[in-house]
């Protein structure tokens, strides 16, 4: 091919003598970084040995073997199998899953509410703008822990199950929890979720591939419909193949409670509303400033071709605002995940809540805290990584 002319020289200009090595910029930079890493590791090791020495002198056990011991406590809300006869590690996993669930739900709600309120802030409608501003100022400026407590108090003051708030046959609101009708549980659902996950991954890969293909060949492949077909079609197909189960399970009063349908605990709900509303206030401001960062000329050009305001928002402003929105949005997501650790004030068994119990029972505070810190670090870094990938996706092509 003709690319020979433009090919960059393959080897870097390698230093030849010892003198060159000593003054090579690349080698110096690496050297200082290695030195730094070694120093940090040494310090860490020193501190660790120190703590272990002190603890052994006071006859306190060290190490992580306690994770295999039987926990001996019950957990109110669990999504994976667990009994008081399970291990501490098991208990931690229950807490981790609970943290992940409340964080994921919180991120979704905070994003939807945040975008709606943020757009309302610049809607041009005086009433709507004032309302949105008021909402933002309240949810941003009340400490998140107070908000969670506020919601748990509200939910605990709902009527008891025997005279619940009734939403037709579809739901009951009580101080024991919120009960809703839902498709009756079948093993098919598991496969449908799996199909959904598979479809989303396939859609992302397909979109990236289509973009590459266009960049290489100049041919445009619209991935909107195939993508939707993958995401929604696959679970639907699984449902059809499984014989299309349509049974609905309704919550029915039984004893002091309800059976059937799905139930959401007051603790989960309070924590969820608390952390997601708090984050939605910040997200709304991020969205507002992203929208306002879009040059005026863009809106004028869109008006000049007679686009309706909602199309201007959808197709011209938001895609450009996303560039500005995504990086700070990432840090809101990360702080929402960390905020979920206030679960203990409402009694939701998240990772910290369970870790705390474990710490009190075993007395191995250093290890328990280390485990929790590492887990949070892992979750937060994963969230950042995903958002960074997304950011690359919304970035605008320049030369």
């Amino acid at each position, binding site marked *: 091919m003709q690319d020979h002319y433009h090919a960059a020289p393959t080897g870097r200009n390698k230093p030849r003598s010892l003198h060159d090595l000593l003054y090579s910029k690349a080698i110096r930079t690496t050297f200082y970084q290695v030195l730094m890493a070694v120093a940090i590791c040494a310090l860490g090791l020193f501190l660790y040995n120190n703590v272990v020495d002190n603890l052994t002198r006071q006859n306190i056990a060290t190490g992580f073997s306690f994770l295999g011991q039987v926990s001996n406590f019950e957990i109110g809300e669990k999504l994976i199998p667990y009994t008081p006869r399970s291990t501490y590690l098991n208990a931690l996993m229950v807490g981790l899953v609970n943290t992940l669930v409340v964080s994921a739900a919180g991120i979704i709600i905070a994003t939807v509410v945040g975008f709606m309120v943020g757009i309302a802030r610049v809607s041009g409608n005086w009433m709507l703008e004032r309302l949105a501003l008021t909402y933002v100022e309240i949810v941003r400026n009340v400490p998140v822990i107070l908000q969670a407590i506020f919601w748990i108090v509200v939910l605990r003051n709902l009527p008891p199950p025997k005279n619940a708030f009734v939403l037709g046959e579809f739901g009951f609101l009580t101080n024991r929890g919120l009960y809703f009708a839902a498709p009756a549980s079948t093993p098919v659902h598991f496969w449908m979720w799996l199909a959904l996950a598979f479809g989303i991954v396939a859609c992302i890969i397909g979109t990236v591939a289509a973009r590459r293909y266009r960049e290489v060949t100049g041919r*445009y492949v619209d991935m909107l419909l195939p993508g939707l077909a993958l995401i929604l079609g696959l679970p639907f197909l699984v449902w059809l193949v499984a014989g299309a189960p349509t049974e609905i399970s309704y919550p029915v009063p039984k004893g002091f409670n309800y059976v059937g349908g799905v139930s959401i605990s007051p603790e989960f709900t309070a924590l969820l509303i608390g952390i997601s509303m708090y984050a939605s206030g910040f997200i709304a401001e991020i969205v507002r400033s992203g929208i306002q960062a879009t040059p005026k000329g863009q809106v004028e050009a869109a008006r*000049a*071709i007679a686009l309706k305001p909602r199309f201007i928002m959808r197709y011209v402003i938001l895609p450009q605002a996303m560039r500005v929105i995504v990086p700070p949005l990432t840090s809101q997501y990360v702080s929402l995940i960390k905020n979920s650790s206030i679960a203990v004030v409402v009694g939701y068994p998240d990772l910290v809540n369970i870790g705390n119990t474990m710490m009190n029972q075993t007395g191995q505070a250093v290890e328990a805290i280390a485990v929790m810190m590492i887990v949070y670090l892992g979750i937060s870094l994963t969230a950042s990584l995903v958002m960074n990938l997304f950011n690359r996706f919304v970035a605008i092509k320049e030369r």
Partner: protein
Amino acid sequence: MLDTHDTNDAVIKISSLCKWFGQFKVLTDVDLEVRKGERVVICGPSGSGKSTLIRCINRLEEHQSGHIWVNGLEMTDNIKNIEAIRRNIGMVFQSFNLFPHLTVLENLTLGPTLVRQMKKKDADALAMQFLEKVCIPEQAHKYPLQLSGGQQQRVAIARSLCMEPEIMLFDEPTSALDPEMIKEVLDTMIELADSGMTMIVVTHEMGFARTVANNVVLMADGQIVETGPPESFFGNPQHERTRTFLDQILKH
């Protein structure tokens, strides 16, 4: 029924138009008529209200008194009127204002698909047709920021043309361009003029005004000072203000 108005054969009729920005009066009693197929060039010193005037025509700015009719339809606060008039008027800006997150082709098809509700396939075909007209069909799948200024402005012209408007407004379309790119954009505009498009062009390109315009308008301090066909406007200007302006601009 939309209120219509007999404007004789003028496609655009502006009468005693006034506009204020706060306390500051930008336009004072502007009267202007543009007939079908006519090319009007507006010139005048910086800050004289040229941009404001043409931006009032498609309501990127609101006027406070006076009237604007486009094809007999008055530009008022009525959303239906605004939309109907905007569909019929294309506008090209000094700074191109292409949508940077969309490819050239997507820039061109956005209006046709969302406003004119064309099928994507038809919109693509239409867009390619206009890209060929402005001589850059090979750039269809690039992003605007990957093009030169002159190419971007030609894309912007094609984007307006894709709405198949009857009238085109140009606000200093060549002022942000390097000299060697000005010509390619002016050539595109001349071709458009030859095809019979009604055009209002704010520009300092006096050569373009001489060859293309039916009427040249001089604005100063928010008022129209002089209007006339290029021969008399350049050859025998009636007003002192016009003479000093032409002296200044033709000296360069």
